[in-house]
């Protein structure tokens, strides 16, 4: 890859961000960008690389978020200890949902994932163990460092950055391995892939398990940082849509697409929320809608494709 210098500069910029700005709002936006990048990169494993557009990833995000706070409320553990529990639950749900939904194609698959996710949201909203409609709270004051409860966004920034680096390194290795080629073939067409010996269903399932596991970790990190979740903020359909939009905006099926998408969407969302007050879901929906329209109309393959088009044009101008 000839973009390595650019990647290095981008990485250094992100790593230095909280030190470059000493405004807490901007530092918080930085941490949220990384969290969104983790979530969307996790979605990208299935939705981007394998081309199976899930609109139900809130299930895995929610499983991670709830697991973190349930181990605290029920057992008194530090919330981060719930992350492996969330991953285990997510893998179980993925295995359960995956096999039947993968028999569906295109829009039908997407619709089935929405339905499954909504089912879990309704379940959580009525289950006292999960705080029902009210939701769950983390530790009000940190008991030990293990509670990972900090006033400053800076520790979260570096925690999220570390997780993102692990995830992207893994994705990069996957992309270059047999699995990467098989997922690309599946995205290109099941029928041709199978004729070449690609076990399509098995690889879709691998991609889903990997994707669900990391989405769940993102959910746990979110709960650890925010310290409060309810059915809408941890399992709402808006989360599923957001992951999809971020990845599509930056470029689904590319390594850095979700990170680029997060670097655009999250600051935009946070500033509009700050300007129009509160969680402003109305504004959020309008922004999401506008982005879907723009991406669909002008650059269906995201900013990464735009970048590719620009750089190859520049390259081909050289005699």
């Amino acid at each position, binding site marked *: 890859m000839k973009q390595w210098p650019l990647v290095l500069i981008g990485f250094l910029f992100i790593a230095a961000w909280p030190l470059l700005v000493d405004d807490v709002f901007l530092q918080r936006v930085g941490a949220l960008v990384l969290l969104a990048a983790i979530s969307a990169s996790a979605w990208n494993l299935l939705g981007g690389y394998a081309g199976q557009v899930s609109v139900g990833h809130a299930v895995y995000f929610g499983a991670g978020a709830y697991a973190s706070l349930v181990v605290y409320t029920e057992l008194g553990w530090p919330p981060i200890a719930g992350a492996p529990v969330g991953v285990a639950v997510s893998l179980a749900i993925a295995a359960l949902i995956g096999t039947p939904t993968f028999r569906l194609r295109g829009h039908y698959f997407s619709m089935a994932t929405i339905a499954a996710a909504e089912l879990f949201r309704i379940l959580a909203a009525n289950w006292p163990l999960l705080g029902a409609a009210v939701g769950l709270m983390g530790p009000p004051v940190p008991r030990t460092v293990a509670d990972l409860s900090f006033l400053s966004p800076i520790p979260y920034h570096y925690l999220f950055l570390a997780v993102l680096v692990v995830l992207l390194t893994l994705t990069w290795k996957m992309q*270059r*391995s*047999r699995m990467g*080629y*098989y997922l*690309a*073939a599946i*995205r*290109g*067409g099941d*029928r*041709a*892939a*199978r*004729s*070449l*010996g*690609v*076990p*399509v269903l098995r690889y879709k399932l691998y991609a889903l398990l990997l994707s669900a596991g990391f989405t769940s970790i993102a959910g746990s990190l979110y709960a650890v940082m925010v310290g409060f979740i309810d059915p809408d903020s941890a399992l709402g359909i808006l989360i599923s849509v957001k992951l999809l939009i971020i990845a599509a905006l930056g470029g689904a*099926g590319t390594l850095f697409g979700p990170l680029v998408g997060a670097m655009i969407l999250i600051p935009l969302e946070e500033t509009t929320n700050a300007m129009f007050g509160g969680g402003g879901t109305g504004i959020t929906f309008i922004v999401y809608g506008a982005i879907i329209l723009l991406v669909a109309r002008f650059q269906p393959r995201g900013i990464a494709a735009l970048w590719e088009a620009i750089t190859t044009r520049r390259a081909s101008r050289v005699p």
Partner: protein
Amino acid sequence: MFLEARGIIKAFGAFRAVDGADLDVTQGEIVGLIGPNGAGKSTFFNCLAGDAEPTAGTIRFLDRDVTNATPEVHARLGMARTFQVPVTFEDMTVVENVMVGAFLRHHHRAGAMRKAEEVLEFTGLSHLAGSPARSLGTPGRKRLEIARALATEPRLLLLDEALAGLTPAEVRLAIELVRRIKGLGITIVIVEHIMEVILSLAERAVVFHQGKVIAQGAPRAVVDDPAVIAAYLGHHMKRVRM
């Protein structure tokens, strides 16, 4: 027996696209499958390759019953096929398309890459290796389909109209390629519309008509068979009248 299909029926509703067809293939030969459009050749291929489940009949390949086996299993056992309408992986380059096939027997990237390059060389596509597959025209795509199938290192290759839509010069190149594939020791069943191709390539011709095998034997003798002429002529006249 290398490949043995017995009494294959494939029904779509009440309509039988394949209606009790038999086929025997011995190792090392080139069999030509001919017949008018709509005779059921592609549907029969889909049954052989595990892409469609036959309504009735049995298929044995290398002494194994593969009647209900998936396409993946067929590929692993050594049966590869091309599609009449090429199904290229559009977002990949030419060499990446071929690597997908090569990964079947070479689990590591370097090995798959080496195999893919070897196949591209063999099929005369080396100069296009790095090009996006979506930039290929029909002849390129047909050749890429063959290359991808060869990369799975098959023992039997099913070619569905791999030469259709090519110019006479391209057809000559393709015929030469098929001969070289046979030279590798790969058995070939080829569906072809152009009689001359079957006459120059196949050692044996099998004629399909309305889902049934109506004649088979030496290509020369088969094309002079009155029943075959009638099948083709009847079909031709029907089309003219439309």
